[in-house]
Each structure stands twice: as structure tokens, then as C-alpha cells.
């Protein structure tokens, strides 16, 4: 029984990240919490790319490059989201998304 983690283990880890992130997205009332959940999900996908590259497409670096892009995009998304949160916080003094139901039906 080898202790070296294989594809399955890494994939289970990333999936766990993803699931935790998704749980966060669906359950947190604070927008920041939701955003952190999303970031977690994005990171799990980034991890995925690296794993798959490492185990399934060894000679190339496509997955790794993709990971870098994902991180960059996630950062951009986070920045923009935080900017919007700040703007909202200024007017509402809260970023509780469960109260943001001005528009519905």
C-alpha cells in the first residue's frame, strides 16, 4: 500500500473543495461568504487542471497554463465582486444577500 497519492486522491480532494465551495455558495448569507465559496470552487477547478495535466497529459503543459488563467480570472472576479460589495455596503450598510430581494417575481 503506497502512500503516494494518485489521481483519484487528488481528484477527490479537488471535488471536496468544490463541494465545500458549492455548499458555501448555497448557504452563506453574507455576499463575501458566497464569494469565498465561489473562489474555493474556482480553485478546485484550477487544481483539477493541474492534476489532469500531471496524470493524463504529461508531456504538455496545457493544464498548468489553464490553471494560471483560472487564478487570474478568479482574482479579477473577486476584485470586481468586492468592488460591488463595497458600493452596496455604502448604501445598505450590509452585504447580506438574503435581504436583497427588491426585484423578484
Amino acid at each position, binding site marked *: 500500500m503506497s502512500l503516494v497519492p494518485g489521481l483519484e486522491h487528488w481528484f477527490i480532494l479537488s471535488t471536496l473543495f468544490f463541494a465545500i465551495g*458549492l455548499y458555501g*455558495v*448555497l*448557504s452563506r448569507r453574507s455576499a463575501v461568504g*458566497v464569494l469565498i465559496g465561489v473562489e474555493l470552487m474556482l480553485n478546485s477547478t484550477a487544481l483539477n487542471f493541474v492534476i489532469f495535466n500531471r496524470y493524463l497529459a504529461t508531456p504538455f503543459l496545457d493544464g498548468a497554463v489553464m490553471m494560471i488563467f483560472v487564478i487570474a480570472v478568479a482574482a479579477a472576479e473577486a476584485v470586481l465582486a468586492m468592488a460591488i460589495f463595497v458600493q452596496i455596503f455604502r448604501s445598505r450598510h450590509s452585504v447580506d*444577500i*438574503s435581504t*436583497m*430581494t*427588491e*426585484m*423578484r*417575481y
Partner: protein
Amino acid sequence: MDAGFAYAWLVPALPLLSFAIVGLFIAPRSRQAAGLVATASVLAATVIAVIIAAQYYVAFPSGGDAIIAWSFAWLEYAPGLTATIGVLLDPISVLLLVVVTVVSLLVHIYSLGYMADDPGSGRYFTFLNLFTFSMLGLVVAPNILQMFICWELVGVSSFLLIGYYYQKPSAVAASKKAFIVTRFADVFFLIGILLLGYQGFQVAATVGVPDGMQVFDFLFLTAPSTVGALGDASLLTIAMVLVFIGAAGKSAMFPLHIWLPDAMEGPTPVSALIHAATMVVAGIYLVARLFPAFAGSADALSVAMIVGAFTCLFAAVIACTQNDIKRVLAFSTLSQLGYMMFALGVATLASPLGYAASLFHLFTHAFFKALLFLGAGAVIHAVHSNSIWEMGGLARRMPVTHVTFLIATLAIAGLPPLAGFFSKDLILAAALVNHHPVVFAVGLLVAALTAFYMGRIYIVAFLGKARSDSAEKAHEASPVMLAPLLILAVLSLGAGFIPVTEFVGLPSDSGHDHHGPAWLPYVATAAGLAGLLIAWVIYRRPTEGEAEATGWRVVLQRQFYSNEVYLFVTKRIIFPFVSAPIAWFDRHVVDGAVNLTGNLTRWSGIVLSRLQTGQLQTYATWFVGGVVVIGLLFWWWVR
């Protein structure tokens, strides 16, 4: 085809032309001119008709060929199925041509006086022309479709003329009733035509059609080969009964008689022309026209006989109790039409005495009944009332009318040597000759009843003392009205001597007995005299309150409640239980379904919109759910 009669189309065409011209151009401007032009056109038509009759009967003195004097294809339904418009001359159509033109002419002339004060008389003469045209078209129809077309047109003319006083609710109601009841019968006629047309077409497809004939032509339909083929298909009886129902509607046979008494709401000359002399005999004419086909089915003829005999008795009984002079005459007409109908019913191809008798009676009846109506019209014009109990003693004040009315009364009562005697005698003879004793007995009884009720109104209206102020002040009608009365009186006196039965003989006649037993004229005359005598005894000194019927006579006066039955069926059953539910059903169920669809759509929109809670996490859940569902769908469907 005899070129000598090619001009015959002028007879119906003249009134038609006059109808169009008078209706469109003359009547709106001058009602006097309208009357004169209308009358002139009918005069011309009469002259031509009489010339045709003379020519024709001289050429064929004892039953002759049918001549298509003129025709053209009017409406081609399909190759081989064409409605032609044409003029058919045969003994009975020529006979009817004369009757219709003469009576119509006299009524036109009479109306010139009768309607002189009516501001709407332009319209009146227009309609009268329309009627004359339609009736003539009906008479000369060479095929059953033209018959139907003119049949409808006389119906509508009758409707228009009955409702002439259109501000009078009773006249409006009567006109509607007349139209709708006859229309109801016409449906059966129409179905009969469809059946005849269809079967005729089948026959034509197998047997072939003689040259120059169409499927709808009477000559084709009554040809022995066609009748035989129809009989084989066992549809002859059905078709003939259907046609008979149509005829019964027009001729007001029981139980479709209810429109005729009400139709007396129209101007009296109209009653004389349409509802006594001409239109109502269209049904008789139709049966006579199709007689060879009817004769192919004993059942159909029996129906005609039974209905005719029953109507004959039924109407006569009612006539005895009516107080309105025109209603009495109307029921009398019904009764006489019953005579004609059962006369046709008792006839057979081999022994067609009833056929000739029926047409003979049609001929004589036209004159004396028109005379009665016109006389009644003169009286009503003078007294301003229809009730015989407001008349009385008119014999002195209106001598000419009195004499002519008396002649007509005696004629209808069947006293020799007046016209009615000969024709009624012949009908009774026909019943005997063809072994229908019950029908004969009914005929004889009705002969007595006829004499009784005619005697009743004559005695009450003309003899005794005046029973109202207006009767007191009544005076003789104008000459223009009296002239037709006199002419008709002459015809009522002499028409019996015209050998109509000779003219209209059927070729199939196997020379059976053409006269009843020798005792028949005496018995018939005795019956008539008895009726008159009873009337004299009862009404010589009429008691006060006679007008008010009591006890069983109420039933009679209310015409056995036949109107009420109809009203009940239409107003209480069809309108509220058929029509109203359909209207309701349409609004609430059919339309409700449409609205329901709309509302359901809207409602589902509302329900779906509740999914849009505004909660981001609801949305996210749906999103993830969508992913799962699509994944599952892939797994299920594509795998």
C-alpha cells in the same frame, strides 16, 4: 316542342318585369301609377294565358302532351345535374295558368279600389306582382327545382303580404307564423327533392336520361322507368311522403294548417288571391304534378287521402263556430283543400277520376272562394269589422255584394247548377268509385257542414237587422271593386260547365267509371240543402250572446287548441330548452373553455413567477439542480 307556345314565357315574365319596375322606380313616386302598371301587366299576362289555353285545349281537347315551351340552363350543379328555368305546358299547368292570371287580375282590379286610401299601396302592388310572377313560375315549372324556387318565392310573397300592415303586431306575428310553418314543411320538401335528385341521378346513370331532359324534370321523375327504379330502391314512398309534407305545409293540411287562419291578417284581396284561390292550392298542384310518382306508392297516396279527409272534416267543424267572417272562410278553404287532397289520394293511375275531380274542384273553388273573400272584403270595407255579429241586414244596403256572395255561398254549398256542385259531386263519386266508403261519408258530412257554416255567415251577415252602427251606415262598394265580384259570380255560376275533367285526363286512364252512382247528385244536393236549412233554423233569429262560445264550443272555437300546442312546443320547449341552453352553452362552456385556457396560461405564469424569489441562493439552487437534471437526462436518455 311546339314553336307555337314559345311566347309562353311572357306570362310569368310580365309580372316579374312589372315587379322590378314598379318596385324600384314607380312605387316610391306614385302609388296610383304603381297600381295601374301592376294591373296592366297582369292584364297582359291574363290575355296571353287565355290565348295559350284556347290554343292548347283546341289542340289537345282531351288530355295532351307536355310541351316544354321554353327553357334554359340556369344553374349547373354538375354535368348532368342542371336546374333549368323553363315553361312547361301541359293540361294542368295551362289550367292553372288561366286560374292564376284571371283571379290575380281580378284581385288587382279589386285592390285598386280596396287599397285606394292606403298610403303604402305602391308596396302592396309590388308584392302582389311578385306573388303573381312566383305563382305563375310555379305553375309552369318544368322541373322540381324551379317548383321549389317559386314555391319559396310564393311563400315570401305571402309573408310580405300578410305582414303588409307591419305596424300591427298581430299581422306581423301572422306573417312570421305563415312563413315559418310553411318553411318547416319545405324542409321535408327539400329533403324529398334531394332524395329524388340523388336517386334520379343514380337512375339516370344506369338507365340514361331521355334527350333534352334533366334529372330534376317532372317528365323524368314521373316517367314509368324512373318510378319503377325508385320503387325498387324502396325509397319512393319516403321521397313521396317527404314531398307530400311540403305540399301539406303549403296547402295547410292538418297539422300544418295553423298558419292559414292567422294569415287572414293580411288585406282581404290578398286572402282571396293567395290564401284561397292560388297559393294554397300549390300543394294540391304539386301532388297532381307528381301524381304518376305518387301513384307508384300506395302508401304515399293513402297518407294524402287520410290527411286530406281529416283536414276536410276538422276544418269544417271549426268553421261552424268562428265569428270572424274571414276566419270562417279560411277554415272553409282548409276544408275544401282537404277535399282536393283526398280526391287525389283516392285516385289511382288506372282509375284517375279523383285526379281530374281534384283539379276540377281546384278550378271552381278558385272562383267561388275568391268571390267569397272579395265579397267579405267589400263587407269589411264597409263595416270596418270582421265579426259577423257586428254585421247584419247588409242585403239591403249592399245589394250587388249580397247577390254575388249568395251565389258563391250556394256554389260552395254544392247546389246545382253552380260550379261547386259539379266538382264536389265528382270528388264524392271518385271516393265511391275507388271504394273508400269512409272517405265518402266524410265528404258527404262535410258537404252538409259546409252548407251549414256558409249559410250561417250569410244569414247572420246579410239578413236580419243591423247589429252595429257601422253596419247601419254601410254602403255599397265602388264599381272598381264590384266589377271583379260580378265577373267572379258569373264564373262561379258557369265554371261547372267547362269540361275541365276532359282536359286534364291522364293517358293511363283505363276508362273506369267516370261517374258515381246515379243517386249521388241527389244525396249530395240534399246534404247541402240540409245544411242550409239547419243554418236557417238556428240563425234566422240569432240570440244575444251567440258570439260568446260556451262549453264544448270553446274547444271548437279555439280550433282544438292546435295553436296552443304549437306555441307550447316553440315558446315553451324549443326556445327555452334547446335554443337558450345552446346560447348558454356557447357563452359559458365553449367560450368558457377559451377563457379558461387564457386564465390557465396566466395562472401558470403567476405560479412560475413565484420561482423568481429574488433570492440569489434560490437561483443558484435551481442552477445546480439544472445541471443535475441535465446530467441525469443524459444518463437516462443517451446511455
